[in-house]
């Protein structure tokens, strides 16, 4: 049992990039929950933080689009976006190539992930790190799930991916924290940016907190698209973390729609 933490959080670029435009009454408690999660993670003294993020065509394109990919670099660079646009300064982030290599080797027995020896972190990783490890002193291992360019991986494989990740983490000596980042319902980077389906989000979160595999993986992509937008495909990252925490249930730290952040802002963890 060397998985020491499992949680989920939002990653929308507006969270840092359009910070000053949000209602402080919503923003500040959200930020506080985000930072609290960071403190909890760091209190576990993890050797590595695995961030399960959703691709936004920053590192991968349709000339070779992996369903799942894991980083295997000594270090990483981020953000790939304009620093001012995202509100986060560009920097190197430490990795752990050797640990990643061992995890990937094990995981390949059950899932067919790609690996990457270089990776430019986009907001999907950088926004969470900004709050969780603001000193950027915890080695990060990124994972990407294609939630953007169809054909995309089905939900049951995302859960299975998480189970496989857990098995691999538990088989190594290092202490590992895992955080899934993505949106629930949202329509990012479209004319509907800011639209959020709170009812849909809360139903999904109930299923996630209960770690109800069947309910979590029962959404069709068609239904998700219409109820939760193309951004809703990112529930795969949350489902993967549920898979990694199979047998555990969770606790919701924060949820509120913040339209200028273009997502229902969420912080939750599993009690492993």
């Amino acid at each position: 049992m060397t998985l020491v933490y499992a949680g989920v959080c939002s990653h929308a670029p507006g969270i840092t990039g359009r910070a000053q435009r949000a209602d402080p009454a919503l923003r500040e408690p959200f930020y506080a929950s985000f930072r609290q999660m960071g403190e909890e993670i760091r209190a576990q003294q993890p050797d590595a933080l695995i961030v399960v993020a959703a691709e936004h065509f920053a590192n991968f394109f349709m000339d070779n689009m992996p369903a799942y990919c894991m980083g295997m670099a000594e270090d990483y660079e981020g953000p790939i976006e304009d620093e001012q646009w995202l509100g986060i300064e560009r920097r190197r982030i430490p990795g752990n190539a050797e640990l990643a290599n061992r995890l990937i080797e094990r995981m390949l027995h059950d899932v067919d992930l790609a690996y990457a020896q270089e990776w430019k972190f986009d907001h999907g990783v950088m926004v969470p790190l900004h709050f969780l490890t603001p000193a950027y002193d915890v080695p990060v291992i990124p994972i990407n799930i294609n939630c953007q360019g169809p054909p995309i991986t089905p939900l049951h494989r995302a859960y299975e991916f998480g189970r496989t990740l857990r098995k691999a983490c538990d088989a190594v000596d290092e202490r590992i924290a895992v955080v899934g980042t993505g949106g629930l319902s949202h329509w990012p980077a479209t004319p509907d940016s800011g639209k959020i389906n709170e009812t849909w989000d809360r139903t999904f979160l109930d299923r996630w907190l209960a770690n109800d595999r069947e309910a979590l993986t029962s959404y069709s992509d068609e239904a998700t698209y219409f109820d939760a937008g193309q951004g809703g495909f990112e529930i795969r990252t949350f489902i993967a973390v549920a898979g990694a925490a199979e047998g555990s249930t969770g606790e919701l730290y924060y949820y509120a729609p913040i339209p200028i952040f273009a997502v229902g802002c969420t912080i939750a963890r599993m009690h492993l």
Partner: protein
Amino acid sequence: MSLYTVQKLLYQLNRDRSVQQRYKDDFAALLEDYDLTGEERHALAAPDIGLLYVMGVNGQLLMHYAALCGFEWDQYISAMREGLAEHGSVRAGLYAATDDRGAVS
């Protein structure tokens, strides 16, 4: 496959500072490297963010191109709305299905 090519250009432009430099130095020459239709070249060069959205360019790519072209956030959202009003529903890609027109609200 031409939408693929437009998106690949934006992907490379978003990621690669040397491509960004070529964008600044001589955008026309950069466009020459990609096999694009006249409408695509026009939409990129104008830039007509709304038309690119209607063509089906994924927002995760277009959002950064709009920023690179100097669009503030609200301007960028408006440009997509204006594109829908002027050019009609999204023609291809992930958003083509949204309420049959590329925006739901």
